[in-house]
């Protein structure tokens, strides 16, 4: 039986259980007219039975689906002839893959011999058996649960409280997913990064000046030892981020000031949504624009004044990234400026200062913590931005501070290392996770500080 059919069947059983449970509770007290003799509303007895039917069976189903593939593989492998059992893990994996492909009727990479065919048949047989056992067990669990709940129904049963407790646990589980996600990110990145640092010393990674992450197929190949010094990536990331900030911070800040202080209501009502559109454009679109429109333009402009500009210059990527970040900076600055009490502004204006003086000498100093927090968030966003740099920045790791040269960034390298075929124990693939760890730690640090500063600052004037 397919698991979808099984789930549908369980859903049907739970629905039926609801009506049976409700009917049972009412008939115990002598019909619909006597509902007040029950502890809870009749519906809650229905839900109570339904929960008993559905949840144990679904839990079993989930567990089964997780354990089943590995169990079947182990069984099939243990049934293989002696000769196959001494294979190296990689070869064994390949063999298992072939058996699975043969079993599902896909293309197989080796000649099919009798052992393989037998193993594939065995595989299919185990899979069919497993599905049968699962169906019987799940339906059995559902029936058993239903029977237990059915017997427990009694006018004094606190059915509402029990149902509400289950709901409460579901809500807690849902809100804990955020924590599991963070833990998952940290663990998945950390484990692979630790494996990487076993192959490449962490000092070389953090302080090495040479990045060329190829691994040799044979030991005697030229350049067989890839070098994993990530400093050029860090400087490249910083260069692009700095260019983006040079664009985004003044423009975003001045936009916020102009819209808050000078513009008419009509201008504000049109300009603000337009800037929000800027924030809603997908980054891949910015990347396309950077690579196909801005980069050639920067190159031409540079050449017309006699500068040599790489076609994948850091400048083009940084400029476009800066434009992408303008709305973020301007909206966070806007919040910070608006949080400054009007009394301070009115006081400054009343003493005869012009509006620009009020702004630069009174409001901005007061709003500075909020603005700085916003800028930190913007920097974190720029560091983690991927598509623009993947499409518009280069791949070669240059250690340079010249914005007209091509540089590469941490995110670009993660993408190039992980896109395409990969094996999971080469330093090349694991390097991506080490870079991911760096990225996560740095952005987390910036986010925590930025969010805290912004929040503290808001509370200060509340």
């Amino acid at each position: 039986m397919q698991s979808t059919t099984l789930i549908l069947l369980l859903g049907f059983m739970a629905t039926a259980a609801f009506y049976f449970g409700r009917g049972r509770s009412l008939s115990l007290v002598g019909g619909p007219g006597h509902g007040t003799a029950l502890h809870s509303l009749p519906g809650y007895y229905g839900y109570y039975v339904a929960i008993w039917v559905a949840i144990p069976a679904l839990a079993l189903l989930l567990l089964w689906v997780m354990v089943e593939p590995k169990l079947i593989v182990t069984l099939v492998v243990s049934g293989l002839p002696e000769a196959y059992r001494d294979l190296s893990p990689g070869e064994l994996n390949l063999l298992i893959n072939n058996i699975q492909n043969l079993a599902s009727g896909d293309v197989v990479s080796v000649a099919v011999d009798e052992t393989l065919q037998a193993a594939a048949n065995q595989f299919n047989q185990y899979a069919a058996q497993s599905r049968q056992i699962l169906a019987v067990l799940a339906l059995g669990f559902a029936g058993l649960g239903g029977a237990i709940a059915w017997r427990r129904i009694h006018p004094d049963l606190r059915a509402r409280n029990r149902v509400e407790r289950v709901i409460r646990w579901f809500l807690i589980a849902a809100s804990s997913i955020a924590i599991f996600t963070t833990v998952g990110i940290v663990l998945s990145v950390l484990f692979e990064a630790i494996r990487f640092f076993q192959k490449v010393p962490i000092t070389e990674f953090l302080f090495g000046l040479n990045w060329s992450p190829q691994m040799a197929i044979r030991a005697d190949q030229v350049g067989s030892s890839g070098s994993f010094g990530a400093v050029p990536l860090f400087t490249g990331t910083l260069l692009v981020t700095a260019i983006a900030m040079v664009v985004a911070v003044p423009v975003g800040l001045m936009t916020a000031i102009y819209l808050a202080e000078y513009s008419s209501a009509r201008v504000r009502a049109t300009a603000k949504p337009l800037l929000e559109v800027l924030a809603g454009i997908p980054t891949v679109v910015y990347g396309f624009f950077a690579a196909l429109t801005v980069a050639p333009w920067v190159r031409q402009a540079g050449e017309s004044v006699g500068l040599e500009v790489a076609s994948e210059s850091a400048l083009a990527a940084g400029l476009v990234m800066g434009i992408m970040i303008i709305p973020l900076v301007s909206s966070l600055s806007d919040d910070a400026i608006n949080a400054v009490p009007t009394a301070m502004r009115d006081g400054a204006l009343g003493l005869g200062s012009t509006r620009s003086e009020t702004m630069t000498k009174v409001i901005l100093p007061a709003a500075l913590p909020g603005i700085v927090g916003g800028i930190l968030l913007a920097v974190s966003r720029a560091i983690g931005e991927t598509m623009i740099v993947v499409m518009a920045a280069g791949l070669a790791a240059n250690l340079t501070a010249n914005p007209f040269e091509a540089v590469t960034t941490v995110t670009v390298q993660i993408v190039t290392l992980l896109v395409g075929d990969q094996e999971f124990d080469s330093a090349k693939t694991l390097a991506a996770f080490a870079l991911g760890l760096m990225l996560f730690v740095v952005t987390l640090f910036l986010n925590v500080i930025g969010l805290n500063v912004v929040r503290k600052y808001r509370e200060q004037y509340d």
Partner: protein
Amino acid sequence: MAKSKGQTTREKVEAGLPRRRRKELMFKFVGMLATTVGVVFLGVFFSTLIAEGSSAFKQTFMKLDIELAEDVIAPGGELDLAYADFDGLVRSALREAIPEVSGRRDRRELYRLVSVGAAYQLRDLVEANPELVGTKQTMWVPASSNVDMLIKGNIDAELDESLRPISDKQIAWVGTLQDDGRIETRFNKALFTNGDSRDPELAGIKGAVMGSLYMLIVTIALSFPIGVAAAIYLEEFAPRNRWSDLIEVNINNLAAVPSIVFGLLGLAVFINWASLPRSAPLVGGLVLTLLTLPVIIIASRAAIKAVPPSIREAALGLGASQTQVVFHHVLPLALPGMLTGTIIGMSRALGESAPLLMIGMVAFIVDVPGGFNDPATALPIQIYLWADSPERAFAERTSAAIIVLLGFLLLMNLAAVILRKRMERKW
């Protein structure tokens, strides 16, 4: 009045006024300039996009009189679709249309005027109507992408022959075809009905759109209930303790974690550990769920906060339990705000590409995916792939795909705005 250097304070202030007014004007001007930067960029961006992409919605077609020769398609009276030389039929029709071509090299150049899609079209036609075998059909078949670019004016015919992908002879033949009324530009249906292809004139976005659709279905089915449940717990039930604080800090941080890190998580957990299939919309949807959850939770919490406490108190006063208060009263009132937040989260998920690169969705996939486990790409990834292709015709299609993507995003945001406007309640 204090005096210094023979000036009153008033005089001093007045002396400074012109300078201060100039500064004020400058400041205002700089502010205006900054505001226009964003708006001007938006204008330039959309105008180049439309100028570049609008031509991709049209496609050049060629009228050919194709002889469906029986000995080619059905040798021995039996239909042989797999091995029949449909290309040959198209070629002979082309030779017929321009009879003056002779010599192998010239002929080969001539054949390049028509797309390989012409043969597929022919095969589909014969498959659908076997009775047509032996007749002569007048058909509009797609021209090759170079002819298409020439007709649309994207290839400069004045350029030196070696600098353009189409030769002088080919241009002359296209001219002959045009004079015969055999060339026409029509609406580019293939863009919306085909999957990806190596040939620009046959490449379409249907596969990518379906991939995105399957992913969004997974995302919304998971992230909406989970996000709403988490928001309800945090706003209505959570005790003020360290665990709740931890959850809260986590959610705020996750909202700002770079999306590519979620891709790494997906690769390590869903693909390596749980061995789910690569390139599948299911895995993409799971990753996007984790990515959009913080957005939905934050929006849902704001919506719950906006429900006035008097409603809760009234229900509690009438004897409802806390759970009943939440599910019978607070949730229905907060739902419009939650839905708005969900739509915004979905529009972010639709435009996201970096995490999908990590889980193998960046592959050349011709078939339109038919389920959650089929290999697929997404619309933003298709844009990324096409943007990397060197052919001029793909640049045009990239812009068209971007226009479609932005159209979807616009629709979603419009829906969110309308929902907010119509359902919003003032208390």
